[in-house]
């Protein structure tokens, strides 16, 4: 069901977990501290309601816990693992990339891995280089994985439910900076319509801004400012980075003739490069200007307040890129 108005992103995640656990006894939740609600309450109440045999606290052993969840999924359980920060997915990459992602293919279709990994990512609060990264491009590079990145409270719940119902390993990336945000109004979002589909968040005629995660709200703020000077940008949220809904993105750029890709990850090797490559092939004849990218500088995430602010792209970064696209300095 659609979360009520005033529901936060975090509450929407919590509700989605609860609803899927109610609907399907094969849904299990595993991770560090999940039985006590996790660091911010995403799993709050689940252990009390469903028991600690289904909401399982694990040791700090990310690699083995992800492997264990894959092994359970191979047998038909639908585990939802919480990796507290995506920075720690590095510890589980062997299991996830070499086993979870590939077992479907390597087995010639005999096995499937209905696994969801929820993980926090992104910069906020000065948490520094080990608790703030955006590693979605690494994961979207792996055949067999799906990568989902919600940007609103309502969609977070719907996308998570779709991820849990999916028969493939899905990385579900939650920007910490969105956890306490609420949607302006409750949006009826069907589960089926979300996974693998992009969404136009604000229509516009001049430049398409493809934004992911928290950069969607940043782009919407940029849109307000640009609108005041007569520039209407169209903000499109891919929502799923793999598989990518190129059709919706391309349709937008065919209309506007210009595009900016905005993400919080470092630009070099980021998902923006892939989007640019796929878009230019799809819409080359429609392009009035090169597609530009907005993202973080090629550096680890710094901890101090001023340096952190310098690291994260903001609406001014997007506005500057949009103006550049339009040939205005």
């Amino acid at each position, binding site marked *: 069901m659609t979360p009520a108005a005033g529901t936060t992103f975090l509450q929407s995640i919590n509700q989605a977990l609860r609803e899927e656990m109610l609907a399907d006894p094969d849904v299990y939740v595993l991770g560090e501290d999940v039985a006590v609600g996790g660091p911010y309450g995403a799993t709050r109440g689940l252990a009390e309601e469903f028991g600690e045999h289904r909401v399982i606290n694990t040791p700090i052993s990310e690699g083995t816990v992800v492997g264990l969840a894959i092994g359970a999924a191979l047998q038909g359980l639908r585990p939802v693992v919480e990796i507290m920060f995506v920075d720690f997915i590095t510890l589980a990459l062997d299991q996830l990339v070499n086993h979870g992602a590939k077992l479907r293919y390597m*087995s010639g279709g005999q096995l499937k891995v209905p696994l969801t990994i929820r993980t926090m990512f992104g910069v906020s609060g000065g948490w520094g280089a080990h608790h703030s990264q955006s590693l979605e491009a690494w994961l979207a590079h792996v055949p067999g994985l799906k990568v989902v990145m919600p940007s609103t409270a309502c969609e977070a719940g719907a996308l998570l439910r779709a991820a849990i119902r999916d028969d493939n390993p899905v990385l579900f990336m939650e920007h910490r900076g969105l956890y306490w945000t609420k949607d302006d109004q409750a949006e009826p979002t069907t589960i089926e319509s979300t996974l693998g589909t992009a969404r136009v968040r604000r229509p516009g005629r001049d430049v398409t801004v493809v934004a992911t995660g928290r950069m969607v709200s940043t782009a919407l703020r940029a849109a307000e400012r640009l609108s005041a000077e007569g520039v209407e940008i169209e903000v499109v949220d891919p929502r799923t980075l793999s598989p990518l809904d190129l059709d919706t993105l391309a349709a937008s750029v065919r209309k506007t003739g210009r595009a900016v890709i905005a993400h919080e990850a470092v630009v070099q090797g980021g998902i923006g490069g892939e989007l640019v490559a796929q878009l230019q092939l799809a819409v080359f004849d429609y392009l009035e200007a090169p597609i530009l990218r907005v993202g973080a500088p090629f550096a680890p995430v710094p901890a101090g307040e001023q340096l952190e602010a310098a690291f994260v792209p903001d609406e001014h970064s997007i506005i500057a890129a949009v103006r550049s696209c339009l040939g205005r300095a």
Partner: protein
Amino acid sequence: MDKQTAASLLDTMYLIRAFEEKVSELYAKLEIRGLLHLGIGQEAVAAAVCSFLDRDDLLYSSHRAHGHCLAKGGDPRRLLAELAGKANGYCGGKGGSMHISAPEVGFMTATGVVGGTIPLALGSALFCRERRPGRIAVVFFGDGAMNMGAFQESLNIASLWKLPLLFVCENNGYAEFTPISAHTLVERASEHAAVYHIPTVTVDGNDLLAVLQAVEPAVARARSGDGPSLVECLTYRMRGHYEGDPSKYRELSELQEWKSKDPVARFVAWAIDAGLLDETERDAIEAAARSKVEAAADFAREGPVPERDAVSRGVYA
């Protein structure tokens, strides 16, 4: 042990031996390719462990997987066809030697990553605990895996959660080209298990009877929900780390010494002595195994090549 059991165990060991020798031959003749790790010399471990397992028990293997798959009931024809990259192989030619999967007989998967299947086996054991009490998961790994974090983490979790799991370490004394003495001071997997309060024993892995004796209570313990055990089998691979490995890191004398401890010959001698087998029966069992493997080679040779566009199909469920 009765005559039938002895014959069945010997049948499994001969099947593995004949299969691996055929693989070696076909590799030398360039009929099959890839990175192949043969289990000649380690047959007793696979045969003994799998003799306690049913089809519904869930088995995970290492990179040296052929024998485990056959012992679990895998079809030698589909296994060899997979090694040959054919469409009629278990994985349609997509897996190969190190990624065999035969879930229809409870052989879940092998792995190209040392220690990589250990966490997976924990998950399948969790499934057994939750959904199929009495069923168990089993994982084979080598001494090289002892130094992987995944092994240590898995011992901890399996012990903590009392998972219905059997760890089987095939300690063949070498991690690839490096003798165990050069990569750890803790040379026994059972030492690691004991640290995590897991019942454990180290046995002569080339003595089928010793392996049977060690595995039986461990399997019973897992089935009854009392938690994991670790059985360590000291053994030796008679071929290189991989097929084609010149094995310059070990002395010929060492190879000769282990040849005298051949697990198949030892069991045959014991069984004949115990009156469970005679020479004629032995010959018949070996001949039947070799004939099965010849049929497998024909099946693989005649199998269709996968369609070219299968390369990008089946990535997602």
